[in-house]
């Protein structure tokens, strides 16, 4: 009873502001629904059309590649960052907070900065290559399909890494004498200590941050929308940006919703995995 009293209000809140849009979205995806017009129910026709759309499959592959590499890099990098920052050093708090800057700065604005840093005319790498006469203009960070994807992943990692780091840091034991001494007495090396002491402590937090990172990366929108809008030739289009273009640019709300809802099965699997893993009686 006590539990229900506690979870009741937030659940109601979420239902009101999320439940309705969710149902509305599902309904949209089953309709031929031009913007500003009444829709007609078409069943799964939109999804069938998606399945025949080569760009849709390109978008699917892009989204998986983007999510996979960005998440892996953030996970490893974030863990490394947390371990490094868990040590004692001067101006520790300030540096820890400064490291959060990429996460703090509004994405739309920081992405605008990256527009210049990824411009072969202005990027430091290209400038150095030009300066030493090695290449002119050098790599095209957003013009080549593969490099464009890599660039987006780098920017995503840059943005997401700090939060990973700081969240894992909160789960790490302080460089507490008790623990390291205990481990040293056991004769454990640094690596062993990390594997058998630190990592298990961090496991629940790593798990949650990773799962949510997958969700956020999978549904990422702003970064791509500002930087490439899906170009060159769809090489960086993701589900969210493609859905947005179809729905807003093309005025096809039903089809846009079907593309957006195509994200649902993979995300649902992830969330089910989370729920199983986090069941209260398991620890």
């Amino acid at each position, binding site marked *: 009873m006590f*539990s229900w009293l506690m979870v009741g209000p937030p659940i109601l809140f*979420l239902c009101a*502001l999320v439940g309705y849009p969710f149902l509305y979205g599902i309904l949209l995806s089953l309709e031929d629904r031009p913007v500003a017009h009444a829709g007609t129910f078409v069943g799964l026709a939109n999804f069938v059309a998606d399945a025949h759309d080569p760009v849709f499959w390109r978008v699917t592959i892009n989204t998986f590649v983007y999510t996979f590499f960005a998440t892996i890099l953030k996970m490893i990098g974030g863990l490394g960052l947390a371990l490094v920052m868990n040590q004692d050093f001067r101006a520790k708090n300030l540096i820890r907070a400064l*490291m959060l800057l990429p996460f703090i700065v509004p994405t739309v*604005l920081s992405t*605008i*900065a990256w527009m210049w840093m990824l411009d072969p005319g202005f990027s430091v790498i290209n400038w150095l290559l030009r300066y030493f006469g090695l290449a002119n203009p050098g790599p095209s960070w957003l013009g080549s399909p593969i490099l464009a994807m890599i660039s987006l992943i780098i920017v995503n990692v840059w943005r997401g890494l700090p939060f990973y780091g700081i969240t894992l*840091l909160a*789960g790490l034991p302080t460089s507490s004498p008790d623990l390291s001494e205990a481990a040293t007495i056991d004769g454990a090396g640094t690596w062993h200590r990390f594997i058998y002491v630190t990592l298990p402590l961090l496991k629940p937090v790593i798990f949650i941050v990773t799962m949510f990172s997958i969700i956020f990366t999978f549904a990422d929108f702003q970064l791509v929308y500002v930087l490439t809008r899906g170009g060159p030739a769809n090489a960086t289009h993701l589900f969210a940006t493609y859905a947005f273009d179809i729905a807003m640019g093309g005025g096809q709300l039903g089809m846009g919703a079907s593309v957006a809802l195509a994200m649902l099965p993979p995300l649902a699997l992830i969330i089910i995995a989370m*729920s199983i893993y986090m069941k209260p009686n398991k620890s």
Partner: protein
Amino acid sequence: MSVERGGLRLRALKLWIPLGAFMVFTLFPFYWMAVTSIKPNSELYNRKIMPMIVYHPTLKHYVDLLTETNFLVWTWNTFLVAVVSTAISLVFGTMLAYPLARMKFAGSALISFAVAATYLVPQPLLFIPLADIINQLHLGDTLTSVMLTYPTLLVPFCAWLLMGYFRSVPVELEDAARIDGATRLQTIFKVFLPLCVPGFISAGIFAFTLSQNEFLYALIFLTQTDVRTVPVGAIAELVKGDVFYWGQLMAAALLGSVPVAVIYSFFVEHYVAGLTAGAVKQ
């Protein structure tokens, strides 16, 4: 200090080299932003000179940003919105996380699934029904509109993150308090929650940051310049067609983020102390 004994080389290997690498990766773009915000346009566009150096620094972009746009109003709005949304999210997050982490009750697995399932609603598309709700509540063009909608993006993550931290607090501590005669609520407030401060800071940083960054809902719900937040205001007034006011945009990015980082630095002090220290001691 065992680390000192290990010698400078070890310390460099374990701390300074990786820390330096992380800092360069993380902060280099900020250096670029800072440089751009004080460069005159003639230098910004000159690709023959080294892009990392300013030859004739100017504060013009800052002055323009502060005098010609409503930047200070946007900053204040952003701050208000972020504080309120964060508070709502932390309270709701705790209300969800505590029972789910601590008590076994029917439907708990279902609830934790349902909470996370919130994220299955693809935000970039489905703002239309949400806009409908906001309009029916007559909240268009009020900060309340985003204060109400942001928590939908924040509560699930906060709840899950807090669940993770709550689990790592040993149950024995609470049991001891209960045996000493404290009620359940007393135990929560006096014993349990203080141990979870790092978790709150972590979730709070997440919520605060996301709400001051959010773009789409703010774009849809806040249409007048005096109720806008920094990202929407800056984009609406500093991105004009295919002409970007680069210097002012970068000034806005820095002024909007560096103070927040400094504020965070006071929080991170308490960050590592509480929870894990307690967990290790047991």
